[in-house]
């Protein structure tokens, strides 16, 4: 098999490494369940965060095909008749 990129941890073991994993997982959990929810309490942020939650927009999606609202936007903008072909017809 073609090797993957250089891999860490070969032959590693021991209590310290497992402890590091547990500590890392706990820190990740604190970030997820304590720190990020706390960000919502930043002055002025709560309504904005809640508005995004309520709208059910996929704010984390990075490509246009993964965001439902893009379809709606496309229909509205196409309906406005401002594409290049529409502009030519207008002239």
């Amino acid at each position: 098999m073609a090797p993957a990129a250089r891999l860490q941890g070969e032959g590693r073991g021991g209590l310290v490494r497992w402890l590091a994993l547990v500590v890392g997982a706990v820190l990740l959990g604190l970030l997820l369940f304590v720190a990020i929810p706390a960000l919502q309490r930043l002055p002025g942020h709560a309504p904005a965060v809640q508005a995004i939650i309520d709208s059910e927009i996929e704010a984390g999606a990075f490509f246009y095909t993964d965001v439902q609202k893009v379809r709606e936007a496309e229909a509205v903008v196409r309906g406005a008749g401002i594409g290049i072909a529409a502009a030519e017809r207008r002239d």
Partner: protein
Amino acid sequence: MSTAADKIEEEYPKTHGTGLFGHEDYWAIWLAFLILIAGMVIFLPNPPKEMDKIIDDGNATMQAEAARAPLRTLAWHDANDKIARLRARDEGLGKTIGGYLERPKRWSDNPADSFFLSKERAEAASAAAKARHESAREKLASAHTAARTAEAAAATAGFKDTALNDQARAAIGEWRKAREAESRARGAANTRSYNLVPGLIVLMIGIGILFAIGAAFMGWSVPRFLIGFPFVFLVATLSFFIAGQTQIRAWGLEYVLWAIAIGMLISNTIGTPKWVQPAVQIEYYIKTGLVLLGATILFNKIVLIGIPGVFVTWVVTPIVLVVTYWFGQRILKIESAKLNIVISADMSVSGVSAAIATAAACRAKKEELTLAVTISILFTAIMIFAIPAAVKALDMHHVLAGAWMGGTIDATGAVVAAGALISPTAMYVAATIKMIQNIMIGAIAFGVAAYWATVMERTPGVKLTVGAALREIWLRFPKFIIGFIVASIVFSIMLGAMGPDKGRVMIEQGVLAGLADGLRTWFFALAFVSIGLAANFRDLGHLLKGGKPVILYVCGQTFNLALTLFMAWLMFFVVFPWVTERLMAS
């Protein structure tokens, strides 16, 4: 004496072979094409019932209404909604397949909701939402009556009274909002039980077998690959689960970040288990995902918002990309040109998707891609809220705000969320500009691959004649990019041939959304888990030395914000003000 081809073979032993079935670049193409062809076979022969009639009648109504009134009337919206509801993926086998491509669901307080909801809890959730739904229905009926009354008043005046037209437009806008709220409330009131676990197991087996086919042809050990694969899939599932938490999702902290974080946590503590390592195949997953992504690069969409949109995206973005790259090379003197171009691309084009494509095109290291996407995601989380706050503070026109946000915020979801914090108009403009920018990824990836092949990694002593350039490109060019471009061209032609409505129903909401897009997202998740499992903090720390990558991002983004704002103002308010008027009227 070694030839240029020998040298390249030494540099890229995995991706430059002689056979069409011996290397992962080609297997990325074959697997992606297999998925796309399967999608065509499943979806194209099964259009929704009366599709042509609904589209023709709907368009006729919309044209008649557009000729009758200078605003989008209730009848116009009804016709548009009927067309929008048509989706090939809702038919027969397509619907069944969709059930198996589901990712862990959105959840709020109870993590189990991401995978499982019992019948009792579903019934309790439905009952709890009944009152909200009833209230939303009443508001919708009331908003519809108000909109109908306002439209009738405007119509009585022959749509010549500006004040009455504005009142009708506002009332119809309120009806649209009420309709959306009712739709969400109805969804909550009809909550059904689900259990995603069996579907996820089937999906894991399916994807594992798919990649194992290529692995077998490439001479890898299939049993070892299949033994390690469930672990990679499990971490990918975990990353979707975390990203599905409502608050994390609202901040735009996507699965990519969690896939890398969990992978790195494992690899840098206990180490990636040896039995998992055969399934840690970054390039294989990412290239297959990228060829599938190529099918969504639909060039027909570039002109959707007219010449202003072309200038804000296809003129500003390349300028920002080149200037930022130059700044990184000449002023900041970033050690790695590949890191520089990946950060420049993700900042100027479209975040993670551009970073993935550019990194694959120039063969950047996994740590370089990791650093670039991490910076992009974190800054995007800030910009979702900071840019709308700036727009409100400056009392900026909503079309200008939308164009500015669409051209500068990295991820599409974040752009739409930021736009929604301003107004529907801002959101529509922002989403459209970003979509056009997304489509630039193909050209950018091709350009970067060609530049790296002919300039950055050109064989020493080779003069850049046309023939030599073509030979260098062929020898060094990542072959999967060919699949990426072919997929883009074929699907753009198909969409063009079908027309925007039928193409949307059958291609975008059929072949792509029904199969290819879902699998692509899983492939990228597997790739980023693999990156995390193969990366280490020390290499990442070395790349961050002096904070230069962050400085590059901040300086480039500052330039991007200034140039995009200027171009958007110039195009939408000086050169083509009628476009802005039409957008506001919509």
